[in-house]
C-alpha cells in the first residue's frame, strides 16, 4: 500500500489523457493529445501477464491502444513463475502482471521492478463441474464421495496453493486423480468430462461457461488470490509501461476485469 500517492497521480494523468483522447474523437490529429508525465505515450508496450488474464488483458490492451493512438500492446501470456524468470533473465518486458504475490516478489527482490507493485484484482476459487453437473456436486464435502473424480492444481502453482488453503479451511481431505500443472489444465479435464470436478478460479470457469458450470462455495473466501502489477525497471518503453499500469487501475479496465469475474482490490 506504500507509494499510493505516486500511482494516484499517474492514474490521474492517464485518466486525463484518456479523456482528452475521447474528446478528440476519430479523425483528429493524435499528435496533439496524450501527454503523459514524461512525454507522449507511443510505441510498443510489452506486457508480461499471467495466463489467467488472457481474456481480460486482451480486451484491456485493445482499449489502451484505442485510448493512446500510436501505441501497440504486445501480450506475453504464460504462467506467472515462468514470466518472472524471463524478466529476471533480462527479457524486454515493460509491464509484469502476476497472478500470485510470490512470483511478483521474485521480480522485486531481484531489483527489477520500477516502483512498488500494486494489487489490481483478486480472484477466488469455484468448483468447476461439467455442464449438467453429472456427479451432483454442491460443495467441497461432495468432492470426497467415492467415485467422484477431482482434478486439483499442483501445490507448486498458485491455484493449487489456493485450493490447499480452501480445503484445509473446510477440513476436507480428498485424493485427487491428478495434480495439474496449471489452472487451464485442470479446467480442460472438466471440459472433456474426464473428471467430475476441479477447483479453478472463478474467472476461468466463467471463460469456459459453454462447457463448464462454476459452483460457488463459502470456504473460497479463505483463499483469495491477489493479482499484482508493476512496471519493469529496465522497460524499453518506460512511459508506456507506467501509462499501462495506471490504465489497468482505471475504471474502464476495472470494469473489464469485473466482467471477467475478478473482484476489485
Amino acid at each position, binding site marked *: 500500500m506504500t507509494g499510493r500517492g505516486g500511482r494516484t497521480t499517474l492514474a490521474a494523468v492517464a485518466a486525463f489523457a484518456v479523456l482528452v483522447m475521447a474528446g478528440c474523437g476519430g479523425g483528429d490529429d493524435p499528435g496533439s493529445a496524450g501527454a503523459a508525465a514524461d512525454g507522449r505515450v507511443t510505441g510498443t508496450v510489452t506486457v508480461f501477464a499471467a495466463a489467467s488474464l488472457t481474456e481480460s488483458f486482451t480486451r484491456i490492451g485493445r482499449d489502451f491502444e484505442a485510448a493512446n493512438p500510436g501505441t501497440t500492446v504486445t501480450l506475453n501470456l504464460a*504462467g506467472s*513463475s*515462468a514470466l518472472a*524468470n524471463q524478466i529476471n533473465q533480462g527479457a524486454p518486458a515493460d509491464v509484469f502482471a502476476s497472478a500470485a504475490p510470490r512470483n511478483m516478489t521474485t521480480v522485486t527482490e531481484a531489483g527489477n521492478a520500477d516502483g512498488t507493485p500494486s494489487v489490481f484484482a483478486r480472484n477466488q476459487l469455484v468448483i468447476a463441474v461439467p455442464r449438467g453437473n453429472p456427479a451432483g456436486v454442491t460443495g467441497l464435502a461432495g468432492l470426497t464421495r467415492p467415485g467422484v*473424480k477431482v*482434478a486439483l492444481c*499442483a501445490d*507448486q*502453482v498458485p491455484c493449487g496453493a489456493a485450493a490447499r488453503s480452501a480445503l484445509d479451511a473446510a477440513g476436507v481431505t480428498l485424493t*485427487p*486423480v*491428478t*495434480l*495439474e*500443472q496449471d489452472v487451464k*489444465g485442470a479446467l*480442460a*479435464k472438466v471440459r*472433456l*468430462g*474426464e473428471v467430475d470436478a476441479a477447483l479453478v478460479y472463478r474467472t476461468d470457469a466463467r471463460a469456459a461457461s459453454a462447457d463448464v458450470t462454476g459452483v460457488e462455495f463459502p470456504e473460497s473466501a479463505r483463499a483469495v488470490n491477489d493479482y499484482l502489477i508493476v512496471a519493469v525497471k529496465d522497460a524499453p518503453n518506460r512511459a508506456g509501461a507506467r501509462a499501462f499500469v495506471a490504465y489497468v487501475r482505471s475504471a474502464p479496465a476495472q470494469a473489464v476485469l469485473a466482467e471477467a469475474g475478478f473482484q476489485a482490490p
Partner: protein
Amino acid sequence: MSRALGTAVPRRRGRVPAALLIPAGFGLLFLVLPLTGLVLRAPWTTLPQRLTEPGALTALRLSVQTATLATVFCLLLGVPLAWLLARVEFPGRRLVRALVTVPLVLPPVVGGVALLLVFGRRGLLGGWLDATFGVTLPFTTAGVVLAESFVAMPFLVIAVEGALRAADHRYEEAAATLGAGRWTTFTHVTLPLVAPGLAAGAVLCWARALGEFGATITFAGNYPGRTQTMPLAVYLALETDLESAIVLSLVLLVVSVSILVALRDRWMTSA
C-alpha cells in the same frame, strides 16, 4: 556391412574437409552447450540430499518403467507395421506412411487431447471400455504408457522401415525358394537382418518415451507414484525451485545416457 568400408577408409584419414569439420564442430557445440549450462548451474553441494528425496526416486523409477513398457508395446505393434510398409504393396501405402508420422508433427499436448477423445471416459472407445470391462485409462500408469507409445512409435517404425528397405531382399527370396513361409522368413531371416536398425529404433523410441511430457500430462494427468514421470516432476519443480529442477534433469540425463551407452555396447557392437 561396415567391414568392407572399414578397410578402405584409413587411407584417406587426415583429410577431413574444413567445410564439413567446422559446421560439425558448431553442431556438436550447439547440442552440448545447453547441457554445460545445466551442469554449471547445478547445486553440487546439496546434490546428495536432493537426490535421495523420495519423490525424485519415485518419479525416476516410474519414468524408466513406463518408457520400457512403451518400447515393448511399440515393438509389438510397430515392427509389423514397418514390415507392412516396407514389404507389401497395397493401395494407399503412401497415405498410411504419412499417417504414421502424424504424431511427430502433432504438438504432444494435442496428441494427449486426441487420446482423451478416443480413450477417455467419454471417448469413442473409452466409454465402451468403461461400460464393458470397467477399465478407464486416463490418470493411470497404463495411460502413461499409452501416451508415451503414441508419441514414440513413429521413431521406431521409421527406423525399422528404413532398415528393411536397405536390407538385401535376396536373402528373403532365397529363404522363400527354399520353402520357407512368409512368417518363417520374417522371424528367421528378416528380423536378424535388420537387428541393428531395430535396436536403433527401439533406443530412439525409448529415449523419446522417457522425455515425454505433453501427451502424458494431458492424457494421464500428474499424480506422484502413479502418473508423475520425471519430466512432469521437473516441470513442477521449475515453478518453485530452479535448482531442484536442474538436479532432476541431470539425473534423468545421466540415467538415460548410461542406459543408452550400455545398450549400444551390448546390441550394436559391430565395430
